[in-house]
């Protein structure tokens, strides 16, 4: 990018529209202090970056005093095309591209219209302004590192690195949780019954077959046997009902040993609840008394206020009759005493009302309890009757069964077989239940193991990715800086700043504050600082495509004649790759550039 023309209007000291031709490789502006040199430097930066070169200022600060806004226009060449940009301090922006004799408007964010540099990159790559070195030296290391990242254009990479580190943390947390779950699931204390189950199933099947064979064998009294089975079933049903009723009875009698005990408590409740009506009346009386006392109190307070208002007056403000101050004082005292008495009475009435209300609430609670007790007493009576009925029925069936003829040997054997089969079936059901729990646990452990394996892989993958991002950052920064470091070294050599053996410059390690001969930048002399800083900027600008010009504002501060000449040689050496625009109040230095385009601002 090369600059061609600068137009300023209502910017700093430039109230009227002024145009400066910047075309060519070298332009020198000479002018004493307050001639508007720095204003033009700021105007160029503002046109390109939309910000103010001086830290902490906003664009409106660039406008001339007492003007609503100022405008900067900058004409330039970028990628073999001509553009112009107009920017006002009120944030208006217009970019045009030359098309033959015409100018065609570009979008404000048209990437082809301006080099893709951020304000920091414009500042470092293309401008050296008067306060810059001081500002740079007081920056914190973290700020300088951030600046370095911005200049190198690796901010997005560093951001990505940060997110990958967070992902790695997330994956580690997930792994810890999964391993914790895996650790908590154990089969200890549980038995695998699968073999035993198989054996038992076979045994049950054999028993069932034997029993079936016995049933099919002809035997004595079939009708008695059928009757026995029917009655046995009826007895078992009565037994079940009896058990159920007994369980319900246990639930109803909870907390009481006998039914009389419950009935006694119910009677006590009923007696206490007899007072409820009387308590209700008491509450009404207390409330009435409190309301009456409150009303009296309000009247007395009104009267008292009136009397107090009359105190110190000679005549009544309403009827104009003369007033006795002694009488008024006595009335105030009487009404005050009366007020205190009523206040005490009202407090006492309020306390009584509160107590009565609490008693009433307690009685309401008791009433609810009474209803509950009545319900339980009724249930108790009902269930006792049901238990007695089931007991009778069972006894009836037992009597009937006893009256039947005794079992024959074959029938006894069948009976025993039946009992054994039922016992084995019960055991089988129990084992199957235990085995089901065992299987569920085993499945949970398998699932936890699979999950742990997966999350471990995810953790490894996130570490792998984060490691690769870290190496990419290192490589990207390293490659860029290597070029810059070589450039600075060459530049310092050309300035003759190395007194002893040449040391390697490591910008990342030194966080943009390189040493010369082992001396930190802060400790160098003024001229050394200026030259080192200039070489640092030039070197970094090589990393920024489009930063093809250098605007210098008073660059000769602290430089003696010999170093001014070295600086001139250095700047001339940067051409034609870089367009150089110098603003200086040093007439001698300005005179060192033969053949440069010149502007003398001292006359303006």
């Amino acid at each position, binding site marked *: 990018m090369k600059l061609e023309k600068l137009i300023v209007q209502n910017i700093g000291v430039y109230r009227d529209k002024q145009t400066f031709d910047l075309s060519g490789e070298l332009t020198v502006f000479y002018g004493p202090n307050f001639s508007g040199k720095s204003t033009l430097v700021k105007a160029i930066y503002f046109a390109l970056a939309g910000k103010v070169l001086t830290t902490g200022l906003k664009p409106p600060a660039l406008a001339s005093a007492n003007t609503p806004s100022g405008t900067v226009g900058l004409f330039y060449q970028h990628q073999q095309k001509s553009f112009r940009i107009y920017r006002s301090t009120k944030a208006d922006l217009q970019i045009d591209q030359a098309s033959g004799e015409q100018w065609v408007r570009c979008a404000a964010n048209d990437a082809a219209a301006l080099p893709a540099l951020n304000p920091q990159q414009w500042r470092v790559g293309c401008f050296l302004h008067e306060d810059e070195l001081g500002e740079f030296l007081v920056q914190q290391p973290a700020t300088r590192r951030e600046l370095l990242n911005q200049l190198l254009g690796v901010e*997005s*990479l560093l951001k990505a690195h940060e997110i*990958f580190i967070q*992902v790695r943390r997330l994956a580690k947390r*997930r792994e810890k949780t999964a391993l914790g779950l895996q650790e908590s699931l154990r089969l200890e204390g549980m038995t695998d019954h699968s073999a035993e189950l198989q054996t038992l199933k076979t045994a049950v099947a054999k028993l069932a077959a034997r029993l079936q064979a016995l049933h099919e064998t002809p035997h004595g009294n079939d009708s008695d046997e059928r009757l026995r089975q029917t009655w046995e079933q009826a007895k078992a049903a009565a037994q079940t009902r009896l058990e159920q009723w007994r369980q319900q009875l246990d639930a109803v009698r909870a907390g009481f040993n006998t039914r009389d005990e419950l009935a006694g408590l119910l009677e006590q409740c009923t007696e206490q609840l007899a007072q409820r009506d009387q308590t209700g009346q008491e509450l009404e009386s207390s409330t009435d008394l409190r309301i009456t006392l409150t009303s009296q109190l309000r009247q007395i307070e009104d009267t008292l206020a009136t009397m107090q208002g009359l105190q110190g007056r000679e005549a009544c403000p309403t009827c104009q009759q003369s007033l006795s101050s002694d009488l008024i004082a006595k009335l105030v005292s009487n009404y005050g005493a009366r007020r205190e008495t009523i206040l005490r009475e009202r407090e006492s009435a309020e306390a009584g009302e509160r107590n009565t209300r609490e008693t009433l609430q307690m009685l309401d609670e008791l009433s609810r309890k009474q209803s509950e007790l009545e319900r339980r007493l009724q249930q108790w009576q009902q269930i006792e009757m049901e238990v007695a009925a089931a007991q009778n029925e069972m006894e009836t069936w037992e009597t009937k069964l006893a009256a039947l003829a005794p079992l024959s040997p074959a029938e006894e054997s069948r009976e025993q077989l039946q009992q054994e089969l039922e016992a084995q079936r019960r055991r089988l059901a129990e084992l199957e239940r235990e085995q089901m729990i065992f299987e569920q646990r085993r499945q949970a452990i398998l699932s936890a193991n699979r999950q742990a394996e*997966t999350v471990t892989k995810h953790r490894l993958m996130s570490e*792998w*990715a984060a*490691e690769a991002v870290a190496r990419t950052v290192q490589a*990207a920064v390293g490659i860029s800086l290597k070029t810059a470091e070589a450039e600075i070294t060459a530049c310092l050599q050309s300035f003759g700043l190395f007194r002893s053996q040449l040391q390697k410059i490591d910008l990342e390690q030194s966080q943009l504050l390189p040493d010369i001969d082992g001396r930190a930048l802060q400790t160098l002399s003024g001229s050394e600082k200026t030259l080192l800083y200039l070489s640092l900027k030039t070197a970094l600008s090589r990393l920024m495509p489009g930063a093809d010009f250098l605007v210098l504002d008073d660059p000769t501060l602290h430089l003696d004649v010999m170093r001014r000449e070295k600086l001139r040689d250095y700047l001339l050496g940067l051409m034609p790759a870089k367009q150089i625009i110098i603003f200086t109040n040093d007439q001698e230095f300005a005179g060192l550039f033969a053949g440069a385009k010149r502007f003398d601002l001292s006359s303006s």
Partner: protein
Amino acid sequence: MNNQDLLARFRDKLRAAGKEGKYARRFTPEDEERVCKAFALALENASLSETLLFELLTGEKA
């Protein structure tokens, strides 16, 4: 260095790291592709959340 250059460099670094120590023979080319896609997305979206990136990386909900 633009994002494409960074992605190419990242792929090289990922492959190199994938041959070392605990990462060796643990990941498939599909895994590598997924990681590269996640990296490219992270480069383009500075506000990408770690949970979303985790999902992109592993194919599972965080």
